[in-house]
């Protein structure tokens, strides 16, 4: 009848998440580790009379302080002292997987090894003696095939039994680090123990090893605890480093890695055997790579796969998206009919239903995209994409995996930046990920397409397809150039090492893919109810208040009154033509009123106040209002321009009347159109994207992106307008 916390550690691609899913099923809770964007998954369950909290640690190869994931995993072990840890090990690559296990053993946390993927071991013709491994490592060992839920229950039972037996007692493993480091470690250990330096949390020898490894996190904590000892330990470390450099041409941390691998090699030579000794046997995975990463075929197949993902997401996803649109359309109509005309109706219909509906409309897209990306990632193909494209993206300071967010965001015109930004999660390199998040929204998303199409058909009717192609290519060029600039300025720093595992190809499991997709989709949908609802109401208010003064409304009423009387006077007997002409007159008055009303609102005042500046880029106040509205969703640019040009509601599917109106406006020239295209391509992403960006990075970074991209958009559109005006 106890409470136990059990951590699950393991390398990336070892089946850790599959094990976690097999153990906890749907009883999961996803959050972030405090202060970082690393995901924390926990599941609670009962085993007999005991309640267990199972914590999925980030996948890591090691427990150093270089990546957020490793720090999070290590600090969890040290600070929260779970009663037991399960290390899920890919038994097919046992040697490398044990490198993490050995580091956990050096800490001393009670450890159970889950030898996963035993099916792959058997098909590869290898034999693993797990009893021998248990004997040599001193850990309990359980064989599992997590994707079939085989052995996972036994694994958990072992962990619980171990937790009960150890009762929170840690028994650290001591590895010999050779004749040079051992005496130094002994000396450090004595000093640390005498002063009780950090030993309330971690073993003394482990602290010594971390000082030899120059582990920044431990040294910083040591300084805070007792700077005198810390400095003493650092001096010892520097001295021995000089010595080993001179005699062995190796730094202490290199020696430590050598000895750890030596220790592992000693263990596994009696554990792993190859009865079918056929070293040249090419595995199925290697055969597939001969084609899938082939010099010519590889990139072609990759293009094909990207195209298929894109097509399925946006054609199949379109269908449920249409249902959701109809649902929210129906809700809007129902509310319109049920409520009296007025502010409340406007708030509910335009502010809440349209806003939240627009956001929830993306849910099917996100679902389909994550279904496919999860399947591709679980299959091992995403790693191959990164491998093939890295050379190109490296030039721009990005990572091979950046291609996916770009494509989904609209690298092929018509995507959507929201799932695009969410797809950056497959990027393991922090700087590269930030740059990708920043520039991915430049791509031509589906909501920008009507804006571009309208401008093209208005100003370049002869060359519309060419211009659309140029826009798509321009977006790619800008994204890559800006990424390069970012990576050599604000997020400077050497490329994150590309040392990456190419996991063998595996058939993704339906369960794994579904759980992953569900998590992402739910996480997104939750936002719609909270922050997005708030922003949506805010934008609605900006475009509604202040309202027209009463005397202006009365004056429009007065203009309409005689016409309405005329219509009533004609009654049933009036000719259709005369009636239609009169109704048109009323519509004209309505539209003029809407134009004045929107100009009078806060958004209108901002647009008008900005006009002197925005005219540098050829944008009048009407364009400014439309661009402000575009922050809600880019297609709003078209409908708001319609209102501002007193055309009433403009259907985004049929923009011809608006195009004609724009061409007729002497203030809106071809140069303005070019500038507007450039501005729309680059300026602040819609707020749903901004929320997604903040979720994947931080609010600061999302704010940088909004301000930086809008600034860049303005500078470039001014330049384009000035140059174009001079020539056209």
């Amino acid at each position: 009848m106890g409470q136990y916390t059990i951590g699950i550690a393991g390398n990336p691609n070892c089946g850790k998440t599959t094990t976690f899913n097999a153990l906890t099923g749907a009883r999961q809770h996803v959050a972030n580790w405090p202060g970082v964007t690393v995901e924390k998954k926990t599941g609670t369950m009962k085993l007999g009379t005991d309640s267990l909290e199972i914590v999925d640690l980030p996948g890591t190869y090691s427990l150093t302080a270089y990546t957020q994931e490793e720090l999070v995993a290590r600090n969890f072990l040290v600070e929260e002292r779970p009663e037991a840890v399960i290390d899920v090990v890919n038994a097919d690559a046992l040697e490398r997987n044990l490198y993490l296990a050995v580091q956990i053993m050096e800490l001393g946390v009670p450890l159970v090894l889950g030898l996963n993927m035993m099916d792959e071991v058997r098909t590869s013709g290898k034999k693993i003696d797990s009893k021998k491994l248990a004997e040599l490592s001193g850990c309990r060992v359980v064989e599992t095939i997590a994707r079939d839920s085989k052995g996972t229950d036994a694994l958990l039972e072992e962990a619980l039994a171990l937790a009960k037996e150890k009762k929170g007692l840690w028994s650290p493993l001591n590895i010999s680090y050779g004749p040079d480091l051992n005496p130094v470690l002994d000396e450090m250990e004595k000093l640390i123990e005498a002063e009780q330096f950090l030993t309330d949390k971690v073993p003394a020898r482990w602290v010594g090893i971390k000082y030899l490894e120059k582990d920044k996190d431990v040294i910083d904590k040591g300084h805070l605890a007792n700077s005198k000892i810390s400095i003493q330990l650092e001096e010892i470390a520097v001295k021995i480093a000089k010595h080993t450099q001179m005699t062995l041409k190796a730094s202490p941390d290199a020696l430590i890695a050598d000895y750890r691998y030596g220790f592992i090699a000693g263990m596994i030579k009696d554990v792993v055997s190859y009865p079918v000794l056929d070293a040249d046997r090419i595995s199925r995975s290697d055969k597939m790579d001969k084609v899938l990463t082939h010099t010519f075929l590889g990139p072609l197949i990759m293009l094909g796969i990207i195209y298929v993902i894109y097509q399925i997401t946006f054609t199949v996803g379109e269908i449920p998206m249409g249902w959701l649109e109809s649902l929210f359309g129906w809700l809007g109509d129902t509310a319109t009919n049920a409520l009296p005309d007025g502010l409340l109706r406007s708030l509910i219909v335009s502010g809440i239903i349209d806003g939240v509906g627009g956001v929830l409309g993306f849910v099917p897209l996100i679902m389909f995209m994550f279904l496919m990306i999860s399947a591709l990632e679980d299959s091992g193909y995403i790693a191959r994409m990164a491998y093939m494209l890295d050379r190109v993206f490296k030039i721009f300071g990005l990572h091979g995996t950046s291609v996916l967010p770009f494509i989904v965001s609209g690298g092929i015109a018509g995507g959507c930046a929201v799932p695009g930004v969410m797809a950056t999660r497959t990027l393991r390199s922090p700087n590269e990920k930030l740059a990708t998040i920043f520039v991915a929204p430049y791509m031509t998303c589906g909501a920008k397409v009507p804006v571009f199409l309208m401008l093209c058909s208005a100003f370049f009717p002869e060359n519309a397809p060419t211009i659309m192609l140029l826009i798509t290519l321009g977006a790619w060029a800008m994204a890559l150039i800006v990424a390069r600039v970012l990576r050599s300025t604000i997020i400077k720093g050497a490329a994150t090492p590309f040392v990456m595992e190419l996991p063998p190809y595996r058939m993704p499991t339906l369960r794994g893919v579904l759980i992953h997709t569900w998590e992402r989709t739910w996480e997104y949908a939750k936002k719609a109810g909270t922050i997005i609802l708030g922003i949506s109401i805010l934008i609605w208010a900006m475009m509604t208040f202040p309202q027209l003064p009463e005397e202006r409304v009365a004056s429009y009423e007065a203009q309409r009154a005689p016409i309405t009387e005329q219509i009533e006077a004609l009654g049933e007997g009036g000719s259709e033509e005369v009636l239609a002409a009169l109704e048109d007159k009323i519509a004209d008055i309505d539209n003029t009123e809407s134009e004045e009303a929107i100009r009078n609102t806060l958004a209108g005042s901002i647009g008008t106040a900005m006009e002197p500046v925005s005219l540098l880029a050829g944008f009048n106040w009407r364009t400014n209002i439309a661009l402000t509205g575009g922050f809600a969703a880019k297609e709003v640019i078209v409908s708001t321009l319609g209102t501002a040009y007193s055309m009433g509601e403009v259907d985004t599917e049929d923009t011809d009347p608006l195009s004609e109106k724009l061409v007729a406006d002497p203030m809106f020239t071809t140069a303005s159109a070019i500038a507007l295209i450039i501005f729309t391509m680059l300026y602040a992403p819609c707020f749903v994207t901004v929320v997604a960006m903040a979720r994947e990075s931080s609010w600061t970074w999302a704010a940088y992106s909004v301000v930086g991209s809008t600034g860049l958009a303005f500078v470039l559109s001014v330049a384009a307008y000035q140059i174009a005006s001079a020539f056209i």
Partner: protein
Amino acid sequence: MNNSICLRNAKVNQKLKILTVNAEGELGRRIRDMGLIPGTEVHVIGKAPLKDPVALRLRDFTLTLRNSEADNITVTPQED
């Protein structure tokens, strides 16, 4: 025996033994964590379409490295 070459210059399908790893800091750590340490036998199994990165097989798994990272590693070709 003086036939040490830089890993960048290794050819596809070549079998090699690592002689030295001269990287420090994060890169060095990552390289070593993955088991690229002196004495390890590696097999170059492929290069990306633009000849960078390179894919290596060692310790029963496959690893990719950029050429700029492979520059820090010297190897000696193994006779079959």
